[in-house]
């Protein structure tokens, strides 16, 4: 995915890779180091210095891209993050930063956007109901009150932004969907920590029981929230997909190495066609995933109108391929892959969760048909 990139992009990726390897390698992930807020803030600040949370924000608001296509830049970072299964809502923070940049008030810019870009806090986009489909028309309901809005309903599959973090909640109002910025620490919000197959991220369910929010929490109040939500989904899909592709890349590399080293029946197992052909097929899945992820980032970044289709296609394709790849690598590792100490299960868990996060392949294929007018 980072095959043909500019020198500036290469520098960004190399610096990001160093940061992750130094600060948050897989051992830290296993220890859930990121659950410690001190660790998390320090990590995010360093990442922010590299521009992790600024790529989708215009220069006028303090952001800026490396290559001119900020979506591609952010996707390349996501790809690097995926390789080492990095924690934290990178996708959510960028998506929310974009939403605030496009539709937020000056107060949002000053109070929240700046803190997101500097790594001070994180954010998550809340758009998913049970059993896991994006609720484009709103995952909770919003009704007008004298002082603002009242939000009611439940949401799940929300990545935890950590203390002081923000949620951008997609809510169904009388005139269509709207987006509301709510603090994680809002006392009216019930935040339920969830157990998860994926142990590299932390997920929440949110319960809004008539949560009153002020007028000022509304983002993009000029009536075009539906379009903005479409854009947010496309962005979320592109970045999630890129993270998955990074994880796939790293896992396949581990597996190929194992197939070269492991001996059975007097030969390295990679010399058997059963293993070799499975790895070749898996490698093809990876190359196709890289290609479609990059194409989607390009379309979304170019704003050529094909972004939502391309993003849903990439999300569906990579969602399936990620699980296929993880399953196939597991089979190659054999017994050793069943041990907690081996890393393959971390990748299997993450890729399986990624496939459903922000809409599973079935949902995105149907969505593609609808976007295509059938």
């Amino acid at each position: 995915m980072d095959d043909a990139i500019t020198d500036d992009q290469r520098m960004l990726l190399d610096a990001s890779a160093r940061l992750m390897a130094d600060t948050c390698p897989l051992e830290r992930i296993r220890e859930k180091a990121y659950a410690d807020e001190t660790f998390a803030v320090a990590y995010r600040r360093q990442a922010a210095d590299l521009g992790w949370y600024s790529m989708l924000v215009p220069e006028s608001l303090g952001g800026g891209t490396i290559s001119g296509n900020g979506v591609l830049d952010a996707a390349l970072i996501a790809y690097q993050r995926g390789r080492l299964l990095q924690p934290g809502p990178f996708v959510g923070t960028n998506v929310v930063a974009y939403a605030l940049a496009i539709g937020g008030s000056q107060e949002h810019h000053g109070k929240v956007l700046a803190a997101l870009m500097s790594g001070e806090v994180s954010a998550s986009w809340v758009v998913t109901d049970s059993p896991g489909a994006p609720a484009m028309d709103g995952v909770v309901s919003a009704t007008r009150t004298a002082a603002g809005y009242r939000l009611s309903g439940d949401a799940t599959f929300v990545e935890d932004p950590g203390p002081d973090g923000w949620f951008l909640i997609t809510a169904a109002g009388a005139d269509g969907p709207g987006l509301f910025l709510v603090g994680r620490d809002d006392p009216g919000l019930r935040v339920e920590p969830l157990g998860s197959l994926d142990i590299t991220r932390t997920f929440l369910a949110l319960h809004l029981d008539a949560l009153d929010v002020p007028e000022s929490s509304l983002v993009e109040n000029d009536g075009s929230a539906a379009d903005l939500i479409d854009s947010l989904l496309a962005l979320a899909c592109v970045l999630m997909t890129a993270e998955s592709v990074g994880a796939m890349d790293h896992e396949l590399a581990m597996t190929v190495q194992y197939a070269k080293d492991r001996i059975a029946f007097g030969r390295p197992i990679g010399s058997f066609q059963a293993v070799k052909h499975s790895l070749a097929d898996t490698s093809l899945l990876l190359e196709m995933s890289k290609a479609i992820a990059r194409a989607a980032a390009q379309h979304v970044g170019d704003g050529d109108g094909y972004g939502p289709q391309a993003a849903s296609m990439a999300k569906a394709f990579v969602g399936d391929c990620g699980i296929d790849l993880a399953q196939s690598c597991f089979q190659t590792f054999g017994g050793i892959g069943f041990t907690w100490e081996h890393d393959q299960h971390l990748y299997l868990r993450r890729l399986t969760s990624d496939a459903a996060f922000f809409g599973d392949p079935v949902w995105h294929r149907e969505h593609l048909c609808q976007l295509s007018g059938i």
Partner: protein
Amino acid sequence: MTVSVEEFRDDVRGWLEGNLERIPADVPPRGGEAVTDEQVAASRVIQRRIFDAGYAGLSFPVEYGGRGLGVDHERVWREEARSFVIPTFGGAGSVTMGPIARSMLAHATPDFLARHIPKILAGEELWCQFYSEPAAGSDLAGIRTTANRDGDRWVLNGSKIWSTGAHQADFAMCLARTDWDAPKHRGLTWFAVSTHAPGVDVRPIRQINGASGFCESFLTDVAITDDDLIGEVNQGWSVAQTMLVYERGAGESGAQRVEPLELAPDLVDLARKAGRECDPMARQAIARAHINDFAQYHLGRQIAARLQRSDTPQPAVAAYGKLAAGMLSPIRARLGIEIGGAEALLWPKDAGETDTEPPTPALNYLNGRMVSIAAGTNEVQRNGLGERVLGLPREPTFDSTKPFREVVRDSRNWNGRVG
């Protein structure tokens, strides 16, 4: 003295009713094979009761404490006992009663059998296998654990892995290399080893699902005698062939024991929880799972019948059942995740579940490849089916004729060029 199946059913019903407890209606069946030490202890008591009443080892020879009956009687027992609290020895229990006891019966001396089989049937001896090794997984005969002759003793050294339930077993059936200068398959021998013997160190392995049903074991100068031999010296591979047939559950491995008639109840339940029981894609997935279950069950029945009609063990044919399980188990687990979505991937933490002990669909997913890998990978089954059932020409082998010592040496210099 044979008893008819229907007469036997009446006997069983009566005895069960009077002697075992019914499973309370509100206890859900739990997946996974791990049992606690307390469960094992309680199970020994119940097993003793069953043994004393003559219902243990229904198909085992009478002279070793069994009843000498057939598979039909065993099926009747299974059907009737289903709603009662019967012994659960976990993985070690199935291994003991299946591959271990069966291959002992075929290969051990009468003296050995008289010493061990009655105790096995009575729940006194729980066994495990010391078979796989870190460097001998799919390559089952690539054993490096060594038994050296030392006077009238044998001295064992090496390490074993993936021993089901070894931490709860009393004995291990251990495969060791007794001749490094013979070709790979001709220098192996099976021994009985007490897991409590000096030099035996058994450690549970933490699995990806957080459970620890398997162990890794280290053998350091463990001393045994000829009385502990199971089969003849250097003939271990033919014992392994018998064992393999029962490892693969005589064709029924992984399949349900009773014809699955109800539409995948676990997945229907999951779909309901996820609000997807009317979703056409979820319905397809549910139907697929049930159809596969049904086909797998009937494959198992057909293979078992074919094996029963045959006189010699046919591990290659039994591989159909193993491969079916190995193919379908991950598919079914994945269908569960796809049907359930967030419902399967995420769960309330306050329900007492931790990261490492997820609810059933996620647990099944993590365990989905177990049967695809353990006791012979799918790839090994395919080789066996291809060569020994379909009669396809052999894979080139580099480890079949030369001394095993040389196989180990040459494998480090692989270049693939033969001619």
